[in-house]
């Protein structure tokens, strides 16, 4: 199993955020990336909510995998258990935030239900398992990958706000130009390949 030392945490961060960005090189979380990126502020809110949930989800799914599923030989149940963990986690986070921090709930709350079906969350849990990360690495992977998502969605939102003033052909407005924009951004992000 891969372990994390202080020195390579930074490399891990760069890898997750820039080189292997969740959106631009792993195509995970594209739905919210395109759906919630019309305003920079909401995009940042969504990104933050995803970071929060992905960190927690990585922790719980890898705990369950390593202490329950793997020892009992029930790894074929991992998908179903992960999705249930994520769904209930999102529910709990929502309830917890509502009680403890209404301000944070107000800003993140509306994005939380959307996260259940965000494939990035389930994706990161699956990656943690297939890459055989230990628990700390899993959590870091979750948080760092989500930061990559945050970066991508905020940049995307900035560009889309600007595109509002552009004269895009009618047929390409919305998703088509959004996808194409993401493609061009992915071209730029290719420059970061091999940094780690």
């Amino acid at each position: 199993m891969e372990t994390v030392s202080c020195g390579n945490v930074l490399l891990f961060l760069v890898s997750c955020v820039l080189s292997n960005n969740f959106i631009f090189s792993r195509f995970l979380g594209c739905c919210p990336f395109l759906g919630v990126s019309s305003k920079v502020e909401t995009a940042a809110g969504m990104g933050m909510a995803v970071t929060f949930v992905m960190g927690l989800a990585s922790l719980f799914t890898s705990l369950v995998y390593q202490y329950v599923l793997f020892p009992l030989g029930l790894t074929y149940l991992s998908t179903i258990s992960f999705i249930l963990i994520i769904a209930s986690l999102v529910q709990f986070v929502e309830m917890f935030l509502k009680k403890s921090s209404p301000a944070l709930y107000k800003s993140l709350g509306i994005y939380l239900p959307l996260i259940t079906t965000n494939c990035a969350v389930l994706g990161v849990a699956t990656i943690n398992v297939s890459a055989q990360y230990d628990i700390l690495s899993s959590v870091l992977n979750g948080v760092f990958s989500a930061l990559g998502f945050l970066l991508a969605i905020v940049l995307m939102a900035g560009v889309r706000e600007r595109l509002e003033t552009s004269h895009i052909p009618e047929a390409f407005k919305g998703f088509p130009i959004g996808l194409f924009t993401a493609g061009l951004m992915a071209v730029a992000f290719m420059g970061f390949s091999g940094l780690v």
Partner: protein
Amino acid sequence: MSLHVSIAPHVHSKDSTATIMRDVLIALLPTTLVGVYCFGLNAALLCVLGVAAAVLSEYAYQKLTGQKVRINDLSAAVTGLLLALNLPGNAPWWMPVVGSFFAIVLVKQLFGGIGDNFMNPALTARGVLLASWPVKMTAWYLPTFCKGVDAVSTATVLGGYEASAMDMFLGFIPGTIGEVSKVAILIGFAYMLLRKVISWRIPVVMMASFALCAALFGMEQDMVTSLLSGGILFGAVFMATDYTTCPMSPVGQYIYAVGCGVIIAVIRKWGSYAEGVTYGILIMNIVTPLIDKYVKIPVYGQEKAKKEAKANA
């Protein structure tokens, strides 16, 4: 008596989009000539094809979609020439054609045409070509007259080719058509400054921040080589200064230029590409809308109005 009635001002500066683009073309002339001199007829062919394909693509797209044809503003010609200058001297003929088509139709017109694209068309097309045909796009040759008639395959300076500072300055090194001759680029820069087409801010700050990062990171090359090799000067003068894709406010331009310099240094030092100019500028193109959104020029009187409101409250 019928008089025209219009709203002031009744006088306008003589600059127009076309004159600005014409000035950029003139500024590119020395670079192009040196490139053609260095890399021979094929380089000339690439430039001609790049410009022709760009102009034709723009014409065809605008005709097909029933828009006003704006090839007279020369912006397509500038894009085509910039793209061609970003190719190695011995690239196949279809490369500038594909690149110009991509730049004009997909990067520029699809987003609404001149002024509406958010990434530099020529540079994006170069990025796409580089990702599509990595071998052909990085097959460097020495300028033909340096080593006899036959072109000799070699690495660039960044890839380990040894060259004197004077050779790098004059352009007798392997590289893309436009980037090799620093002296030609500087002549173009001086012309654009003189004609007030661009300001000094982005090129100078970008080079300075790159130099600082190079010193901090400890590059494989020495400082002079770092600054004179690769496409950084060409990128700083002609690519990063593209109006449409750089920030509007002076402070925003400083941030943008510093960002470009830092990213280029990072990619050169640690990335898998030997040269990071293309990507550094493209990444900052993407950040530009955010810079424009959050770096605001203080509006006359608003700070004071706010202060007074606070004092009263």
